[in-house]
């Protein structure tokens, strides 16, 4: 049975479940294939790619995480910058960064090309970890410990911008991450630069 030519405002009479024209079928097939490509990229990147946001995810409490961060700071502290401890853990270590209104504690000093497990959690509100200028971003949620295996591939003086609204001082919340080139056998350890 034939369906009369009609617009979307008209009620179609009779059976409208009819085969589509070849052109329409072609586009549906192309779209379907493209959707499969879109989908396949994600498992593929898990397998072959170098950037995966899965991490190690655990529940914690603000109190427990604060305590763990303090222990971490005490263990590897190498100095201070404006009252904020600078912490230099050895490669492979678990690194703890605590977010609270409106600061990131502590300042991290890591080595280029070495893997660390970077733990992120909040002691109060939701915060946003945004590494500048690399532009990698993670949500930091109170009660959850997000442990990411991170290998810095560039050295320099980086910033951690909070990019989740956390209160009226949100825009002042900036932390610091220093990445040094890994020391070679001949290079002297850089001593107290002014």
């Amino acid at each position: 049975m034939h369906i009369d030519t009609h617009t979307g405002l008209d009620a179609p009479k009779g059976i409208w479940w009819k085969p589509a024209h070849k052109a329409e079928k072609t586009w549906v097939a192309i779209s379907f294939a493209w959707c499969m490509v879109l989908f396949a990229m994600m498992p593929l990147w898990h397998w072959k790619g170098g950037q995966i946001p899965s991490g190690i995810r655990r529940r914690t409490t603000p109190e427990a995480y604060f305590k763990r961060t303090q222990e971490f700071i005490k263990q590897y502290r190498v100095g201070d910058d404006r009252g904020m401890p600078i912490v230099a853990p050895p490669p492979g270590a678990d690194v703890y960064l605590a977010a609270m209104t409106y600061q990131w504690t502590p300042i991290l000093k890591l080595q280029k090309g070495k893997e660390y497990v970077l733990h992120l959690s909040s002691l109060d509100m939701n915060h946003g970890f945004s590494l500048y200028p690399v532009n990698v971003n993670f949500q930091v949620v109170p009660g959850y410990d997000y442990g990411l295996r991170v290998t810095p591939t560039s050295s320099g003086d980086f910033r951690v911008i909070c990019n989740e609204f956390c209160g009226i001082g949100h825009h002042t919340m900036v932390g610091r991450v220093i990445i040094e080139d890994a020391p070679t056998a001949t290079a002297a350890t850089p001593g107290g630069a002014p």
Partner: protein
Amino acid sequence: MTAPAVFRTCPVLGRKIHDKAELLVKVNAVTAVVSLLVGAIAAVLVVLTRWQAVHLLPAVWFYRILGVHGMSMLIFWIIFFEMAVLHFTSTALVDTRCCAPKLSWFAYGLMLVGAIVVEWMMWSGQADVLFTSYVPLRASPWFYLGIILFAVGALIVTGIFFANLVVAKREKTYEGSLPLVVYGAMTAAIIAVITLLHGAAIYIPTFLWSLGLMKVDPEIYRLIWWALGHSSQQINVAAMVSIWYMLGALTIGAVVLNEKISRSAFVLYILFISMASAHHLLVDPGMGPAWKVANTSYFMYMAVLASMIHGFTVPAGMELGMRLRGYTKGTFEWLRKAPWSDPGFSALVFSVVVFGFIGGITGVTIGTEQINMIVHNTLRSPGHFHATVVSGTAMAFMGVTYYVIPLVFRKKVAFWKLAKIQPYLFALGMVIFTMSMTFAGSFGVPRRHWDISFSQAPFSVQFNPAVDLILAFVALGGLMAATGAFIFVAICVKSVFFGEPLGTITKGVAMYGVPQGIWNPPVHSKDVEQRNAELHAAATGWMGPAPGTMVLVLVFLAAFALYFFTNWKILSSVWKIG
């Protein structure tokens, strides 16, 4: 016994319009436009603050007004308009009455009270929690209660929508199946029910939490809140696509290519779209990779497939509609000879194009699990959703309003010359705005941020100097679009409250202040079946009877692939993370 329903017959569409349903359409539409005005004023204040050279508002007021902007636009403007759409499509398009006018007014009252309470809480600084109100940020209990009242009202209206359709079916006011436009609106209503139930599941506990009566986990909040927050955008998509089909029919006599394909695509929306909560949790510590991959892709991108299908069938229906009316030369005569000075038509085209090319492509790309790491909470995120919900949905709603004013309010469109250019101004502004935001976000510029010069931060942050220029473009685009919105509001207010009555329409005689689809309805000739058969018979190749559309969608696909793989390339250059 109640008085029988009073109908008038629409002189243009020939539909029966129930007076009580019509009044509900009017009042909901007017409330929507008032909300748009509030939201647009807030938009200007926000844009002038983020333009670092102007930096208008102090920090407290910036975050406050940003919250007002989100609520007024995304919730009140859009949803009040959708209520008007539900009242209209479930009555006028199937020739039936509104079956529960009193309950409809009660629902409207709940929504209005809810909206006023929410606005009052936000403006008075008792809800400085932004649009998303992420727990443990705490607002006054009245804020959550206002949202609950609003949502209950909206849920009642969706119930009335279904009831109207049941009455129409039972009383046989239409023959055959529901028109495609009503089918699409029904899709929106079904998704609305799912969405509003998620809303209840999160706002009721959060309301109790704000009273100190229970605990709410911050991650669970984000999960369920986004099942409301993102799914409600899918209501907007379904409503917008229905309006695309409606405007196509009204302006150029667009036909339905194949009911099976278009309706199946709507069903895909219902089946898969509520999984989109995951888009916001891709770099969260709450969920594992399997959940993220399955959900962010709407189970292998089946809802994206639906949008890509509509992205073909809508323009192809328009092309075929024009070809059936004799515009058959070459590949694009149908597009060149289209009524570009009809604001209903230009708004339709811009809505389809910007939604697809900017909103769709960026959305799928940034919603990819790993790519989201270089996007989350940067300006790329609002860059994306202003291209979908503003340039797409709001643009389509504005376009259809140019037809609602004469058809429902029976007034001429005021400031007609301005009305003709309004879609151009609004669309161009939004294109500049969304693309600049996307570029700024690529440099890591955060969203929802008062001061990216970081003047009060302990450590200095120096963005690329290009960022200042890009943010100036964000402001330029934003101000252009806001001007377009103000013009739209002015046109609506003048037409509806002080407008000239429509008067008698003579078919084929141009009328000032009336879109051409009304004085020159794009009816198809008597021999349309034969023409249709000829067009299909002639189109033996795979390009089909709408070859122009096939060219356009292939260009779209190429742009999509380019953007998608460029982002993977950028991602591969950042630190190693596993």
